[in-house]
């Protein structure tokens, strides 16, 4: 369909913009480029978690398997983007702070999110029966979701932050060069659309494969 090609072109433009159009940030040099991909990845990792929790609540309320399907699909995509965010973040960290990992609050947070996703899937694989699997993982998803606000408060206390906050949140306002912010927010929008498209595809595939195996009981 035409909009897929349009989306493809859009993302190519974002990538080009990231490397050619946007200026570098003070003090970060060319490594700034990763910002346009790393931050959206982290954002999608969190968005996926939220979406998964919402569908988990829906499953518990309505008991329809489709909600469990959406919850676990969102979580799968979230896991992928969490891994991407961790890796891109680590590469960036090596470039600017000369060390791959420091348990800086942001690094710790994304790692904890990774642990939560891993725990979610470990639970799912330890339960055979469909409904039980859906039920138990939905509950865990909700419990984990409730824990997140506390983690946001608590994690910054572990280590002093090395994260380039001044760039993005000095007084809660976005303090970027306008060209940079164009590409940055453009990337955000693109990645978000990508997430929902991937979610849609996963659900369609699952639906089709279920249909194939259901020749009347």
């Amino acid at each position, binding site marked *: 369909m035409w909009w897929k090609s349009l989306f493809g072109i859009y993302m190519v433009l974002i990538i080009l913009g990231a490397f050619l159009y946007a200026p570098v940030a003070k003090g970060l040099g060319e490594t700034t480029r990763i910002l346009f991909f790393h931050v959206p990845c982290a954002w999608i990792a969190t968005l996926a978690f939220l979406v998964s929790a919402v569908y988990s609540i829906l499953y518990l309320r309505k008991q329809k398997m489709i909600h469990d399907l959406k919850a676990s699909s969102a979580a799968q995509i979230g896991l992928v983007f969490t891994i991407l965010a961790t890796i891109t973040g680590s590469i960036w960290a090596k470039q600017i702070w000369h060390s791959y990992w420091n348990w800086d609050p942001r690094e710790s947070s994304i790692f904890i999110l990774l642990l939560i996703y891993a725990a979610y899937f470990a639970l799912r694989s330890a339960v*055979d*029966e*469909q*409904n039980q699997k859906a039920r138990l993982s939905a509950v865990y998803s909700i419990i984990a979701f409730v824990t997140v606000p506390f983690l946001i408060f608590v994690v910054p206390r572990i280590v002093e932050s090395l994260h380039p906050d001044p760039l993005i949140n000095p007084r809660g306002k976005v303090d970027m060069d306008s060209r940079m912010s164009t590409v940055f927010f453009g990337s955000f929008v693109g990645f978000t659309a990508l997430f929902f498209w991937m979610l849609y595809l996963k659900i369609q595939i699952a639906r089709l494969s279920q249909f194939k*195996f*259901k020749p009347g*009981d």
Partner: protein
Amino acid sequence: MFKIKASGVTKKFNERSVFKNIHFEISSGQSLAITGHNGSGKTTLVRIISGLMSPSEGSVKFYKNDNAIEPENVHSFIGLVGPYLQLYHNLTALENLTFFSKIRGLGANRSRILELMALMGLKGRELDYVKNYSSGMLQRLKYVFALLHEPEILLVDEPTSNLDEAGSAIVYNILKRQKESKILIVATNNPEESRIGQKRIHVGD
């Protein structure tokens, strides 16, 4: 006057259907026999009626004098006997029954416990640990457990499994009394036993 209404009860495990569209209605003073071969789903149906399991589709509703009973309260009207029911092995029979009696809100009710145990032929065994009970004694003890709170609805899966003639006779007496004024549901392979039920449901094929 109690009533159970099951409509469209279907159960599937991972897309495989155990049974579909089961309907029945039963009131106090009536009895139902659930028949079917081993593995046909009799036990699954019993578990759904007793509330231990939810149906994939359909519902089982309970009524007292035509008023619906809230699902959370149904358990206080049901007594269940079945092979998969276990009691606490590291407690004595008396400790087990006292616990269950208390948790049902009946207090320690020692006299009723002793009376029921005597009825089931277990007099003198109250202080034995359940882990030391033979399978026949355990089956008898399960009846004590099920009847403690004088349930309006008695569900029995394989009524005389592990029982000798004497035990079976006691059980048949109990079942007869139950179906006189209350609801009795029996699940069994045994054609003789299935005649206990005025109504019949056959599960599986």
